[in-house]
């Protein structure tokens, strides 16, 4: 249902009162409840200046209220550039960018993962590097007088990552 100004109404049944505790228990989300909505984060956010939808203060408030699905299903969550200006300037030391990272991690756990992260994760599993570096580029290093690129030890990397639940979303090339 919409209000006269076109905003979506919040229904009490939508709110999950336990959500804030869930976030507060996670590494980086501990100080969520300190936020008193001063808006320093949004006013100093470089992305918010040019985006019509991304507002860190709003994301923090929605999280406090327990609007779990609205927060986690929203594309705006992925707009944060992780510049950490909000974290540095927050008078309540909320670590806003970290709370947003915790929310993104939860969204990813539920399968909301922008393609770029899937590509980088599979590239790391296959080569150690976040980008697939073309063979030609490796050869060019020699002519530029650069030492050979260290190889990724993919067996060892995969062993250390055993049990990381995020990896269930990542298919290796050819799988």
């Amino acid at each position, binding site marked *: 249902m919409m209000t006269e100004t076109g905003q979506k109404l919040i229904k009490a049944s939508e709110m999950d009162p336990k959500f804030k505790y869930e976030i507060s228990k996670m*590494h*980086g989300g501990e100080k969520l409840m300190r936020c008193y909505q001063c808006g320093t984060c949004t006013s100093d956010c*470089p*992305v918010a*200046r*040019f*985006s019509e939808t*991304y507002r860190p203060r709003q994301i923090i408030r929605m999280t406090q209220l327990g609007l779990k699905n609205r927060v986690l299903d929203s594309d705006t969550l*992925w*707009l944060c*550039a*992780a*510049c*950490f*200006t909000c*974290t*540095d300037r927050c008078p309540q030391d909320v*670590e806003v*960018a970290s709370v947003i*990272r*915790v929310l*993104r*991690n939860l969204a*990813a756990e539920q399968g909301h*993962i*922008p393609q*770029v*992260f899937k590509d*980088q*994760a599979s590239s*790391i599993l296959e080569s*150690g*590097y*976040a*980008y697939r*570096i073309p063979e030609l*580029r490796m050869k*060019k*290093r020699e002519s*530029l*007088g*650069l*030492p050979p*690129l*260290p*190889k*990724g*030890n993919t067996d*060892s*990397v995969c*062993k*250390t*990552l*055993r*049990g*990381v*639940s*995020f*990896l269930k979303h990542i298919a290796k090339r050819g799988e």
Partner: protein
Amino acid sequence: MAERKYLMFLGCAIPYRVSAFEISARKILGRLNVELVEMPEFNCCGLPLDPVSHEMMLILAARNLAMAEQKNLNIITLCPGCAGTLKKVNRILKEDKALRDQINQHLKEAGLEFKGTVDAKHLIQVLTEDVGLEKIKDTVVKPLTMLKVAEHNGCHILRPKEYIGFDDPEDPKTLKTLIEATGATCLDYMDETECCGAPSVGVSDKVALQLARDKLNHIKDVKAEAMVTICPFCHIMYDTNELRIEKTFNEAYGIPILHYPQLLGLAMGMKPEELAFNELRVDVSKILTKVCEGEK
């Protein structure tokens, strides 16, 4: 004999598409008697995956730190993202024993252990804290007094302050001082510490390009002849994308984007060819001519 020795952590972006930064950095570090040992094997620092899996980021970063500990060498990186991540994880795992034990369970699978015995530093931190400004000034044989440039630090060399603990994020001085050591003038401009927008590429190109455009406008306003960066991502954002920004917003900048070691290298008397100036996208001929004319 080299006075200082570090493990070189290249990261992913530099070998992928920013070789001019690596070429010029190796040249100036060589001149300053800094020895670089290559990583025995490589995996990403973990930063790109932090948004989707903090756990995976912690393991990947800790794995690199554990390898450096085995070599008993501090890490030097050219990428502020890698430096920031390795520093942050180093600090978190040193302080939080429960988390350290949990991450070490993962590392054990590959015969590694994080102990917290080495440091990770970015190039400009090594230059100012370890090599020292005086020594850098001693190597300058051709002061670039004819150049007026603007600096761009980027975010992860400065923020979050609590974990990085380097310079003042609201009024950073290190890069300025390093630029002035080459003899060039470093101009102040509006919103100097603002993000370049690179992390938003792919998520919202519109936001990313507008952020980059803002900065180029501010730099143009003070009539800087070049921008000097110390981050591969910021460099891609301004150098590789400058033409795209000009086309999108119908602007004309033509501002060359230099890697700091290229600037220092020129001041050390190295030739532009040695410093991979030919790899830059935006035309640098104007400032190179100016530097060469200064020789006469």
